[in-house]
């Protein structure tokens, strides 16, 4: 349980680094812009990210049940699904947690116990990514369903007339 304690103690630093690492994938001028603004509308990327980072980090720390994370992720991903994000952008940021943890805990990683625990923790991150991927794909799937439903609705009468004619 040593790693858990460390992750708890240093969570602010890790979360900050995580966010920074993700934001650094954006061009430098926008990076500052994202960092400085707290309002969602002035900084759609940064604020959403830091909110998610916070929730996800706590989720990983607490061993909460899986169904909880699905609805949490859905809230976050839903908006991203219809915004200008590529799939990798929409969900891939989760991977940067690994790097952040390793950098911040670099000095503590000498103990083999902790290293073992870290591997376990990272497996959790991978699982989370897969979860997110599921949610993302589900939502995209939903989009296609909506699209077909819409087409069906549009020709509602025609379809029903066609169906009723043979009879």
């Amino acid at each position, binding site marked *: 349980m040593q790693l858990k304690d460390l992750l708890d103690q240093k969570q602010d630093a890790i979360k900050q680094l995580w966010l920074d690492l993700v934001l650094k994938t954006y061009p430098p001028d926008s990076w500052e*812009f994202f960092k*400085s*603004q707290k*309002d*969602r*509308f*002035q*900084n759609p990327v940064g604020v959403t990210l830091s*909110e998610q980072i916070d929730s996800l980090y706590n989720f990983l720390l607490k061993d909460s049940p899986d169904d909880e994370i699905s609805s*949490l992720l859905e*809230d*976050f991903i*839903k*908006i991203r699904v219809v915004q200008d994000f590529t799939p990798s952008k929409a969900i891939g940021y989760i991977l940067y947690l690994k790097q952040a943890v390793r950098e911040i805990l670099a000095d503590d990683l000498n103990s083999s116990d902790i290293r073992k625990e870290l591997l376990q923790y990272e497996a959790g991150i991978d699982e989370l990514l897969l979860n997110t991927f599921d949610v993302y794909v589900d939502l995209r799937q939903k989009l296609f369903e909506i699209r077909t439903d819409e087409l069906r609705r549009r020709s509602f009468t025609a379809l029903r007339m066609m169906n009723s004619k043979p009879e």
Partner: protein
Amino acid sequence: MSLWFSIIVILVLIAIPWVGAGIPGIQTLFGVVIPYIAIAVFLVGFVLKVLKWAKSPVPFRIPTTSGQQKSLPWIKSANLENPHNLAGVIGRMLLEVLFFRSLFRNTTTAINEGDKVTYGSTKYLWAAGMAFHYGFLLIILRHFKYFVDPTPQFVNWLQYMDNFFQIGLPIIYLTDIVFMAGVGYLLLRRLFDAKIKYISLPSDYFPLLLLIGIGTTGILMRYFTKVDIVSIKELGVGLLSFSPVVPEGISAVFFIHLFLVNCLLMYIPFSKLMHMAGVFMSPTRNLVNNNRVKRHINPWNYDVKVHTYEEYEDEFRDVMKGAGLPLDKEPAKEKE
């Protein structure tokens, strides 16, 4: 960058009279010539701009209806939000012009707790706008004592109210605080609200900085550096009674103040500051929502190519016939 550009322009504008006022003989330029030019440019520019707007007609009646229409007699209509008569329009315009009605409605949108969109009421922009505009108006009215002689009584009243709380000496004018706070807020939100900063152009910063410059020099003269206001009134009344004089001993700060005011006057007709006239003319606000009651005339209404029933029936006569629809012309062709 927009901001820096505006700052540099303002600094140059300050430097001109600062340097200029020191040159002997040139004071007439800053004290008389430029003010007259500024007034002329302002008046002519303003009138021409409005006339230019007036030249274009209002082809359609497109008021924004912000309330219930006048329809059935037992449904309460919102005459001020959706006017159905002239009184309503006048009321709506008064609310708009005097109380910034539309801005009062302002909300701020936020996304909370993951995906909850909320719309909070936000009156800061409205309050700052009111503070600035009314502060400015009262300050201008108060300045009447420098424009005319004898000082009209209303100026005394204004001064009395403006000096209500006895703070400092000379007693601080409350409108000075209100004005500077208003303009200051308007500037700060341009600098610190990312989305407003993003849309801001140099022509947005410039007038604000100009106003701050005017306010600051005014405050400097009244409370700190002090000036010989007797001479200044002499200059002011002289100017506005068309017998200009430039008395001795007027400090450079005053010339900066005056010059910036002149710049503002000359800037108005060519800039967004024309909103002071535009607000009266916006067709979405100053029209009665009575399109279905009274025909609105579009002077350039022209005929267009339409698809007539005749053409339509010609095309679909057979199928119409087949469907049992009444026809204007029986399908004679078929028999032929």
